[in-house]
């Protein structure tokens, strides 16, 4: 009963506050691009409304800018957003990764300083984990963090930092002890406007400049910005990476149906089937695996709600990257030469977008723990296979 009442309240509020112009718009555009977000008046109205209501981070305490709601109520909000083609304008690295981390490991002071400005999406956060020499072997990171009495001094380089050129703050893993590997890492919050921080965008094969390399040149960081205890950062990072992986595997892939495109580009036989039998067989095989993948996401979510094993995130991420990358390749294959354009009106806009998406999709099996690392994790955690 209470749920029904709350659902009605959510519906009424959404119909009064969600700008209709944003219906069906992919919120990730604004999440990934600060300029697009700032330039869109509807987005700003929507962000402000959700921020004031605390519904972007509904389960957080009101003191942290949330709404103090239950998980069940948060789910109702998510369902109602999705039902009208709306998105959560507050969703960000801050809400998905740093927020849960501070709630679990941060001091009250750190939570009060940072969470309210995450729950309004006023400030953007980036994640400073990978380094040129520390990719899959993340714990080999070297960025120095030295105790200088009343502050820390940080120097080194991070890479593959999403949105660092637009970020206000960075949560980073730094080395506070060089004599041990995992036990010498700390978790530090760094203001990106500090002197000595420089973020440079990296141009990717898809043309995207979303990722950056970030240089830290003797950057002063206040003592109170270290989360948890000194040298305990690896445990925090492992927990945070779980938040990341679970948010990655929840990603709703915006799937272009392949059948109509294949019919148009490859023709149909007398029975209305895709005329190229070989391409058709491969498309169908992938589409069926994709359908089973979506069933698996639903099943894992249902099991997790009922206290199931919940160790399947690595398995799920690999199934996802494998199936979705294959799908992207098939789409571009079906587009033929139309799928090989970089720019220009000679190439249909949809086709150019599909091609960029294919190039971008190669990252799926690299970021958030590569395909090989996920297989290692599955082997050890889910299957109990030995180290030696």
């Amino acid at each position, binding site marked *: 009963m209470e749920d029904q009442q709350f659902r009605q309240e959510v519906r009424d509020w959404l119909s009064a506050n969600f700008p209709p112009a944003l219906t069906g718009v992919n919120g990730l555009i604004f999440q990934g691009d600060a300029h697009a977000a700032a330039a869109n008046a509807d987005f700003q109205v929507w962000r402000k409304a959700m921020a004031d209501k605390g519904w972007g981070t509904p389960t957080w305490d009101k003191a942290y800018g949330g709404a103090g709601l239950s998980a069940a109520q948060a789910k109702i909000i998510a369902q109602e957003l999705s039902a009208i083609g709306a998105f959560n304008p507050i969703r960000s690295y801050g809400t998905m990764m740093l927020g849960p981390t501070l709630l679990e490991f941060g001091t009250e002071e750190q939570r009060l300083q940072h969470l309210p400005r995450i729950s309004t999406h006023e400030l953007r956060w980036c994640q400073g984990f990978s380094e040129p020499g520390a990719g899959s072997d993340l714990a080999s990171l070297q960025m120095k963090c030295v105790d200088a009495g009343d502050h820390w001094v940080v120097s080194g380089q991070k890479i593959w930092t999403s949105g660092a050129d637009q970020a206000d703050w960075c949560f980073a893993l730094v080395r506070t002890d060089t004599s041990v590997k995992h036990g010498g890492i700390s978790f530090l919050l760094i203001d990106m406007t500090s002197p000595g921080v420089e973020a440079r965008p990296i141009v990717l094969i898809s043309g995207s400049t979303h990722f950056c390399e970030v240089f830290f040149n003797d950057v002063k960081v206040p003592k109170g910005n270290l989360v948890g205890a000194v040298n305990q950062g690896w445990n925090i990072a492992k927990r945070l990476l779980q938040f990341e992986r679970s948010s990655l595997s929840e990603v709703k892939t915006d799937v272009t149906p*392949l*059948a109509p495109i*294949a019919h148009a580009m490859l023709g149909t036989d007398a029975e209305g*089937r*895709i005329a190229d039998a070989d391409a*058709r*067989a491969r*498309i*169908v*095989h992938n*589409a*069926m*695996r994709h*359908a*089973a*993948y979506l*069933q*698996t996401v*639903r*099943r894992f979510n*249902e*099991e997790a709600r*009922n206290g*199931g094993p919940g160790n*399947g995130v*690595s*398995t*799920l991420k*690999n*199934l996802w990257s494998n199936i979705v990358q294959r799908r992207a390749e098939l789409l571009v294959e079906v587009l033929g030469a139309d799928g090989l354009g970089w720019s220009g009106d000679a190439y249909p806009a949809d086709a150019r977008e599909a091609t960029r998406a294919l190039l971008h999709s190669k990252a799926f099996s690299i970021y958030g723990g590569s395909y*090989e690392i*996920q*297989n*290692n994790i*599955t*082997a*050890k955690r*889910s*299957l*109990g*296979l*030995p*180290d*030696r």
Partner: protein
Amino acid sequence: MAVLNEEQTMLKDMVSQWVRDRMPVGVARGLYDHSGGGRKDATTGFDADAYAEVAAMGWSGILVPEAHGGSDFGAFSLGFVLEELARALSPLPLLSSAMVAVSALRLGGNAAQQSAWLPGLADGSIIGALAVDEGAHHLPDILALTATRAENGWRLDGIKRPVADGMGAGLFIVAARGDDGTALFLVPADAAGLTREPLDQIDARRPALLRFDGVVLGDDAMLGQGDALLSAILDRAYVGQAAELLGLATQAFETTLEYLKTRVQFGQLIGSFQALQHRASEMFGELQLTRSAVEAALVAIDADDPQLPSLASLAKAIANETAHRITCEMVQLHGGIGMTHEHDAGLYLKRSRVAEQAYGSSSFHRERWARLNGY
């Protein structure tokens, strides 16, 4: 595994316990002679005594309405019973009789036909089997066995093969080509003009070759007409067979995993080699896809979901592929011992190949799914 209610949890525990106590893989092995072929003295290719126990515990009546002596527990429950039993390759006609034949009577049978057959199928005194295939492939749209009008009834002529569990069945559901298209008949095994002989199949399960030589039936033997009825029955068969493949593949995987954790070469457990760990991780992923597809299809049966045909073909195609891959890996990762008849790997490989072909190969189901989904 989906979330089970209390009754389902009890049933599942009961089945696993029974499989451990009564149905080790050795029972399936017992169907083979020493050279790895089927035993010539075996009559049915399944364990009739064990099936009587299964029936006494009520599993053969899971889909039968209470009015006819069953529990009406639903396909989802029968699905995990089939899965558990298939882990040990249990040679039982539960899929043929309790899933397929019972579904046929529920979907097509009139009140008199249901009263005549369902109680016997529920209590295990009669075993039912679907006779649909006639040649090398599952092609239910192309039937050669004919049903022609006879005085006060019908006359059937043709052959059916392979008919799973056909050597011990008392009732056949026969798919025939009539003047107006597909027709289904209830044919007692002792009908005049019907003869059967066993086929020595690689899994030692001895399916039957049935010969219909002027088998005359009354009008009351007609279960129904039309492709839709046969398709609806087959959807249940596809999903049930997929559930068995899931159980078979799961056990084949776990047995292989155990070997990786115990076999030592080069002074270390072979399960510590990354190349093998990654293969195991990928198999585990395929099993997850398969379980999701099978459970979704079982739920669709109970919900009368109009998407059932598509979900059933998805489940069967993926279960086929997964069981195929894992049984190949089971032999390969066991090395030489996996090639011996003494080891279980070969039993899983052979049973898997049979179950993959039964009720449609992967390509049959991919084609069917593709048509249903507009490819």
